[in-house]
């Protein structure tokens, strides 16, 4: 192949032109959060004593899962606090962003046929993917630099701020490179995103479990690119070299990606498409059949992922007991006895798994928009299906799948806890408890439905609620956000079962909100134009 990179510069310009708003939003959201967090932490934890008290409760497994390897807990400075409690969410966010941007500019374009338009021009074989990666790298560098400046602005020291900025950028880059590989493997953008997200989830779990095994990072942590960024021991005892691992992995992944891309046809994945049935089976033709079929892969993927995560989290309960044995004061200190502590841990993990169920539900409802804009909604409706039936059946499938996923999460968590602690009733109790989160999930799904029905161009804003739910769940307490703001999150409104009783009050309110939103969405779809391109 000659001139395989011809035209990369032009494609890069095109990517920037297409993404200018998108980049701005990511930048403001990420850098803005960092810039706001540092002063908020200073207010919430004004002195060393307050921070030290905070540090004392950060060693239990549920906290370790959501934070980082515990460096500097004995002298918990503001910097150490930022590194420990903010950096993981920051790294995960840029990783998600990088996966989405990479897929958007590679496989999505290819699947839509626009890459064919470009490759008919003097544009080299590798140019589209290279432009996408340079673009993603650029965005990560800008966000990394912004992060570093925001930290500096918050009064943190220079080297640590720079290192955290660089760690942010490099972590984003690694996951961009992961997506560069997954986009070569499958011909479908959605599948490529899913595969990269599975890698991210695995990295998350490996880092979390690894750090539970050894609070400063065990061998398992070191398998995770998320851990490398954290292992720089930001603001505590800074070392830069773990970032070299990230860069090395990026190079390796890009080499793999090039290797896979070298011989493959435009538009193809690694394996040729298989054939399927010649005629529809009866399930496909039933009211919910089409929705079920179209969402099948997504449902299976999320379910398997959630169950695996749940079992992993559950099995960590063991180390909690060990820890209690070692530090008997700990349980008393945070006001809970031994048995309750396990429940508290399980409750925290459950609320965390609910993020996944909520994200599934919102994504699955918003697929309706993709269906509509792809003209397929129109095709279904033209056959005489009512709009209400089309949307209601779809929504019903999402709701049932969400229930199944909640129960599966509870079962998995219970299984892990039971295996780890020998507690006899964990499985049943957690499976039932998980249903307390159903109203919260319904609110998220119903918001997506309402936006889709009433203001379809803005339907994507349903993700803002999901992001807020995750944000509140993750750093809300840390930042000591006002209860009003936290309460926007329906998950935050839900009692933390099984520690707290499943008080029906808030659950009924959430259910009512979900019902109103659902009705609004269904009425909306009956009146508005069907859009297609």
């Amino acid at each position, binding site marked *: *192949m*000659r*001139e*395989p990179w*011809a*035209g990369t510069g*032009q*494609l890069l310009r*095109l990517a920037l*032109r*297409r993404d200018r708003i998108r980049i701005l939003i990511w930048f403001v959201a990420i850098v803005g959060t960092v810039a706001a967090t540092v002063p908020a932490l200073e207010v919430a934890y004004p002195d060393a004593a307050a921070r030290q008290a905070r540090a004392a409760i950060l060693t239990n497994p549920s906290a370790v899962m959501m934070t980082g390897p515990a460096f500097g807990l004995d002298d918990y400075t503001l910097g150490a606090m930022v590194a420990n409690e903010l950096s993981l969410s920051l790294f995960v966010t840029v990783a998600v962003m990088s996966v989405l941007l990479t897929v958007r500019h590679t496989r999505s374009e290819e699947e*839509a*046929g*626009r890459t*064919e*338009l*470009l*490759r*008919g*021009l*003097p*544009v*080299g*074989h590798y140019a589209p993917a290279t432009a996408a990666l340079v673009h993603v790298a650029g965005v990560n560098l800008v966000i990394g630099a912004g992060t570093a400046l925001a930290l500096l602005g918050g009064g943190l020291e220079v080297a640590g701020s720079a290192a955290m900025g660089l760690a942010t950028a490099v972590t984003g880059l690694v996951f961009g490179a992961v997506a560069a590989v997954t986009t070569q493997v499958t011909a479908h953008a959605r599948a490529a995103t899913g595969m990269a997200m599975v890698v991210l989830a695995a990295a998350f779990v490996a880092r979390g479990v690894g750090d539970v095994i050894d609070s400063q990072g065990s061998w398992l942590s070191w398998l995770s690119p998320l851990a490398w960024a954290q292992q720089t021991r930001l603001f505590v005892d800074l070392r830069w070299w773990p970032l070299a691992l990230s860069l090395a992995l990026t190079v390796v992944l890009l080499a793999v990606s090039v290797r896979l891309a070298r*011989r493959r*046809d*435009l*538009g*193809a994945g690694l*394996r*040729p*498409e*298989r054939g399927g049935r010649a005629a529809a089976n009866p399930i496909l033709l039933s009211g919910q059949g089409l929705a079920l079929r179209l969402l099948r892969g997504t449902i299976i993927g999320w379910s398997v992922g959630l169950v695996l995560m749940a079992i992993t989290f559950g099995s960590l309960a063991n180390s909690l007991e060990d820890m209690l044995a070692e530090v008997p004061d700990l349980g008393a200190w945070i006001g809970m006895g031994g048995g309750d502590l396990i429940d508290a841990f399980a409750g925290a993990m459950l609320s965390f798994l609910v993020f996944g169920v909520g994200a599934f539900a919102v994504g699955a409802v918003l697929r309706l928009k993709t269906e509509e804009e792809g003209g397929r909604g129109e095709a279904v409706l033209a056959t005489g299906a009512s709009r209400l039936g089309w949307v209601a059946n779809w929504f019903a499938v999402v709701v049932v799948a969400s229930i199944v996923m909640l129960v599966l999460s509870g079962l998995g968590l219970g299984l892990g806890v039971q295996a780890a602690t020998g507690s006899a009733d964990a499985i049943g109790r957690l499976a039932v408890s998980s249903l307390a989160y159903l109203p919260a999930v319904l609110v998220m799904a119903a918001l997506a439905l309402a936006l889709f029905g009433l203001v379809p161009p803005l339907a994507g804003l349903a993700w803002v609620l999901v992001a807020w739910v995750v944000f509140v769940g993750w750093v809300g307490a840390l930042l000591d956000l006002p209860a009003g703001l936290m309460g926007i999150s329906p998950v935050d409104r839900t009692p933390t079962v099984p520690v707290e009783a499943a008080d029906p009050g808030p659950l009924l309110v959430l259910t009512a909100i979900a019902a109103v939103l659902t009705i609004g969405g269904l009425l909306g779809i009956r009146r508005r134009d069907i859009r297609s*391109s």
Partner: protein
Amino acid sequence: MTAIRTENLVKTFGTTRALDGFDLTVETGQVAGFLGPNGAGKSTTIRVLLGMLRADSGSASVLGMDPFRDAVAVHRRLAYVAGDVSLWPNLTGGEIVDLLTRIHGGTPRRDARRADLLDRFELDPTKKARTYSKGNRQKVALVAALCTDAELYLFDEPTSGLDPLMEAVFTDEVRALRDAGHTVLLSSHILAEVEKLCDTVTIIRSGRAVETGTLGDLRHLTRSSVTATTAADPARLAALPGVHDLVAEDARVRFDVDDAEISGVLAALNEAGVSHLTVAPPSLEELFMRHYGDETVAAGA
């Protein structure tokens, strides 16, 4: 000089043999028509010629170069329009035309040519691509391709979304390209378009070239349609060598006859007495029906 040559090209997708020993030659300066039923392998061929697909075996050369290895160099000298054009939803048509022409290697042409094409194709360049109809998306790609000054133009069903007026504009443009000495490969399902524009025609079926040559050659190879009012016994006529598909109504008979056997048939008619006779060359339509139709038979067998 040969602009495009493929020999024994084979391309498989899993178990599907999309191209199965396909040969194609297009001489420089020719307008070559490329016809075949759905799924015959036209788009696959064109995408191999563009280096987007890599053939399993056989050879292909475009403008004297290897279309896969030298794709970029080849593309500097050709322009391509696909039948199903997908554009960036939030760029305008005008922006996309400029973008595509710039990547092709010129500064965007804000000159008379661009304006003229936009005008003739009645395309509003200020609209966002998301709001274009299928035909208008097609026009954006056509304007961009026609704006560039290429040696070779590859069109894969370029008029599939165009109305008849726009199709006429396209026909004019291709004529102008031909008069200026450019080479064109045009795949199409619109026979009239091919008949109007093309010097040579290649018919592909199940990944093989089943017929190739000038329109005259193709007609020559085949049968003529005969309608006659005659006293001759239809059964005797039907038994003559080279006569096919005979239909008799009262004294009128209609049948096809192999061109090679036509004089024997005329003699037989003459002998029996004829009061009315037309002998027509097959229309392109009939020609293609025959080639396309055989596939249905073959596939059904």
